[in-house]
């Protein structure tokens, strides 16, 4: 019977081609949009983890309480010992140290007089050590636009646009004016090894990248550590894992008096008892570090709502297609009933046909949607011109992401909605009596 029905469908293009095209288009849009939304959200989280927060971040309690002003003078003491402990007790994560700082970058002439000066943000990452994972994590090679990657202590990378704004060339020496952890003004010369494009507009306007130890020397930090970032060996952030680790770490490693009192806000809790070790380590998950928890919750809900609306809307369209198909074939159904075919048989054949149409449309639509998603994942949409003045830590190239859900999400509108449409319209078959059937056939 299936072969018979399929033959009939293929011969009658009104029963097969048009509904399949509609289903294909609907599923294509659903899958493509789903992958795109997953990609935007995933990129945002991955960039935040890579550049800002890690999957988890450890700072001192005091540093955490003033984290917005980058208080390097409140860093944890004996950073190497903390890192060694982390690598031994929590080997499932990759641990990296970072220092963020601000200052004035001063380009000078042959008389060592100021030629150009701009405010910059800087990040110190481990470029030469045995655990220099950040060098790969930051994907410096692909971002390099001129010169070389840092080769030796004293080398820095400058954002390409920043260098252009200051008129600095590769190989030039520049002075970074900053403040040590003791509050002294610090002037340190650096060699510009290369220019880099981070792909994040605010960073491309004002960022320099230096070796961690150079920055520590400049800020007179000794073996203090401002921030230690941990990365799970996962392609994407897992909040459940991060939260579980955060809870267990803080219970063991952070200050017990501070941890015992969670009734106050962070700063008040820190100040309420003099016995609290303000420089004890404290871990936060990425969403809490970047204040993205509320946003992430909202975005996840909004994404689900958009996906649902998309699927629902496509479901309505495809349902309508099923309805139209069945109504168009009203006379055919009447004739089939007249020649003695049972109502149940007619109804079942209608459902089988709709499943066939839905499956064909869904498979093609899913393949096309995955194709679009793959293209956007690999090539992306360059929003650089639109985002040139943006202050958001969003990449200029927006990419989609194909997740396992993308392979089956299209079946909900593609197959089930088509089936539902055919099912509802076919119910009319059972309501028809033989007398009216012959009357309809006369017309």
């Amino acid at each position, binding site marked *: 019977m299936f072969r018979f029905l399929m033959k009939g469908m293929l011969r009658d293009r009104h029963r097969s081609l048009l509904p399949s095209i509609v289903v294909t288009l609907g599923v294509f849009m659903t899958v493509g949009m789903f992958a795109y939304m997953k990609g935007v959200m995933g990129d945002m989280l991955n960039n935040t983890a890579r550049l800002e927060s890690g999957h988890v971040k450890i700072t001192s309690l005091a540093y955490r309480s003033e984290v917005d002003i980058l208080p390097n003078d409140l860093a944890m003491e004996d950073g190497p010992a903390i890192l060694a402990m982390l690598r031994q007790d929590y080997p499932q994560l990759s641990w990296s140290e970072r220092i963020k700082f601000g200052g004035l970058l*001063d380009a000078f002439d042959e008389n060592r007089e*100021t030629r150009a000066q701009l405010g910059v943000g800087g990040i110190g990452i481990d470029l030469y050590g045995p655990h220099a994972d950040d060098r790969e994590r930051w994907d410096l090679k692909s971002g390099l636009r001129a010169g070389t990657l840092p080769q030796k202590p004293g080398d820095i990378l400058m954002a390409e646009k920043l260098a252009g704004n200051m008129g600095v060339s590769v190989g030039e020496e520049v*002075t970074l004016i900053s403040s040590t952890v*003791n*509050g*002294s*003004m610090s*002037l340190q010369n650096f060699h510009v090894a290369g220019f880099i494009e981070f792909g994040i507009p605010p960073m491309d306007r004002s960022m320099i990248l230096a070796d961690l130890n150079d920055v520590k020397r400049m800020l007179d930090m000794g073996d203090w550590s401002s921030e230690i970032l941990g990365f799970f060996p996962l392609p994407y952030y897992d909040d459940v894992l991060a939260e579980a680790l955060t809870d267990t770490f803080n219970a063991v490693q952070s200050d017990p008096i501070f941890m015992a009192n969670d009734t106050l806000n962070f700063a008040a809790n820190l100040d309420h008892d003099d016995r609290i070790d303000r420089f004890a380590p404290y871990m936060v998950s990425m969403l809490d570090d970047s204040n993205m928890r509320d946003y992430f919750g909202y975005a996840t809900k909004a994404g689900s709502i958009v996906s649902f609306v998309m699927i629902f809307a496509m479901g309505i369209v495809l349902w309508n297609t099923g309805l139209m198909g069945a109504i168009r074939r009203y006379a055919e159904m009447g004739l089939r009933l007249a020649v003695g075919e049972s109502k149940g048989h007619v109804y079942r054949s209608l459902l089988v046909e709709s499943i066939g149409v839905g499956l064909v449309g869904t498979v093609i639509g899913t393949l096309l949607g995955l194709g679009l998603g793959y293209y956007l994942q690999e090539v992306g949409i360059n929003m650089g011109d639109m985002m040139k003045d943006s202050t958001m830590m969003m990449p200029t190239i927006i990419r989609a992401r194909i997740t396992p859900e993308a392979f089956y999400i299209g079946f909900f509108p593609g197959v089930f909605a088509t089936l539902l449409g055919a099912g509802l319209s076919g119910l009319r078959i059972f309501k028809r009596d033989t007398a009216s059937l012959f009357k309809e056939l006369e017309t």
Partner: protein
Amino acid sequence: MRTLLSILFMGSLPGLLWAQPDAIEILKRVDKQMVTESAEATATMIITNRRGRETRITSKSWSKGETTSLVEYLSPAREKGVKMLRMEDVLWMYTPQADRVIQISGHMLRQSVSGSDLSYEDMVDNGKLLDIYDAAVVGEDTFMDRPCYVLRLRAKEGVEDIAYAQRKVWVDKVRYLPLKEERYAKNGTTLLKNFEIREVMQIGDRWYPKEMFFKDVLANGQGTRYIMDDIKFGVDIPDYMFTKAALRE
């Protein structure tokens, strides 16, 4: 008898007048003690940061007139060789590590020097209070067992862009040193800095601070002690020392 009383009264009148100088006169005497024509000094600055740790910075300074001065850090090793040159309203800073001379101007003059409670302006200030402020005696008090006049200073009309638009000063009645100061912003209510002279020394007939204490009220540190280890007045200092070129030497 009445004549005798009159003579006694008339005779004591100048003494009474001398005992109660007006605000201008008090400021003149303060300036005479504090402002130097030329001086060479060695000082130690003890800074206690918000982690409760002490940093000691030793420096040597030279000053000529009210607007020219040079400070060179002698220790610790990291700061050694750092120089600050003030010429009129411009401050230049030289660091040997970078071999650069950087101008410090505008709001940067009010930044902390080496994490201390002194700003760059405080560090090189040698101006006369009388030139900047209108003064009024608002009371008398005792500070560190020394009887003091309490003066309220307000920036003169037309004097713009000064660090402390108002000050409340406790002036030693005998030595004319400003033993205590509360330094305020323009609104007169926002306290910016507290200053105390905790120990004094006598050099010839001149009284001068031996140990001072600064506390930036808006900073989290625990205050800065500034100890004058040695000071010589009336020293002949060659002019070339106060040039940008000399900073690199």
